[in-house]
């Protein structure tokens, strides 16, 4: 199953979108924990794209592509910015960074999803979560 969305880059669209997405994913019968993780990673990536990629301009779209089979769910979020070299983002779990205000969004995504990858430019993020028997305990 596949679905594509173009979302205005406005924070008020974030909960709307995650509600639509979770609705689309109902057939997967995700556990509560999986729903939480999917929602959090989706929202964090949308917020990052809207903020850093699209300057929070509602007239600039974020593209979201959802694909699923019974073994995996893939979410791709793309913005129009120049991207980030994500290797350069500070590790928020290091002692000296714990008190910092930012940097946890991407870290959470990395931890909660099974596989993530960026395109070379850094403005398109793909997140994969394995489902069913392949899922982590």
């Amino acid at each position, binding site marked *: 199953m596949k679905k594509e969305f173009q979302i205005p880059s406005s924070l008020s669209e974030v909960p709307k979108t995650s509600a639509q997405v979770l609705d689309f994913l109902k057939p997967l019968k995700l556990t509560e924990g999986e729903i939480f993780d999917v929602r959090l990673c989706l929202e964090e990536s949308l917020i990052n794209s809207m903020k850093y990629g699209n300057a929070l301009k509602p007239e600039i779209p974020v593209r979201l592509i959802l694909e699923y089979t019974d073994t995996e769910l893939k979410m791709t979020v793309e913005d129009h910015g120049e991207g980030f070299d994500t290797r350069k983002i500070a590790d928020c779990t290091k002692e000296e960074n714990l008190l910092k205000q*930012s940097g946890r969004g991407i870290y959470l995504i990395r931890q909660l999803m099974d596989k993530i990858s960026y395109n070379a430019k850094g403005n398109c993020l793909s997140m994969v979560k394995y489902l069913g028997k392949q899922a982590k305990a």
Partner: protein
Amino acid sequence: MEVKALEENGFSVFQVTGEINISTSPELRKAFEKQSSKKVVVDLEKVTYIDSSGLATLVEMLKKTKAQGGSLGLAGMTDKVKSLFEITKLDKLFSIYSSRAQALTQV
């Protein structure tokens, strides 16, 4: 999201209900900034969802309380919410209690 600010046993207690996310975390921050207690407990028992902006807001509240020579504890988190603190190693930073009652005796 709703934030109720209460006084209990000389503590400033913030009882939060709902979701602490990018839209609602500024409200929590505003409520916190209305006071300057040295003993703060944030009751998260009824918090169903928190994102990185929510985590950042709690970090800021901790920082500001500590800057006054005070202490801040978090109470009653669900397992899911707690796991986010563990993943981001914020559990090393915060005093986390299983209930408000516990926090009020220990903070």
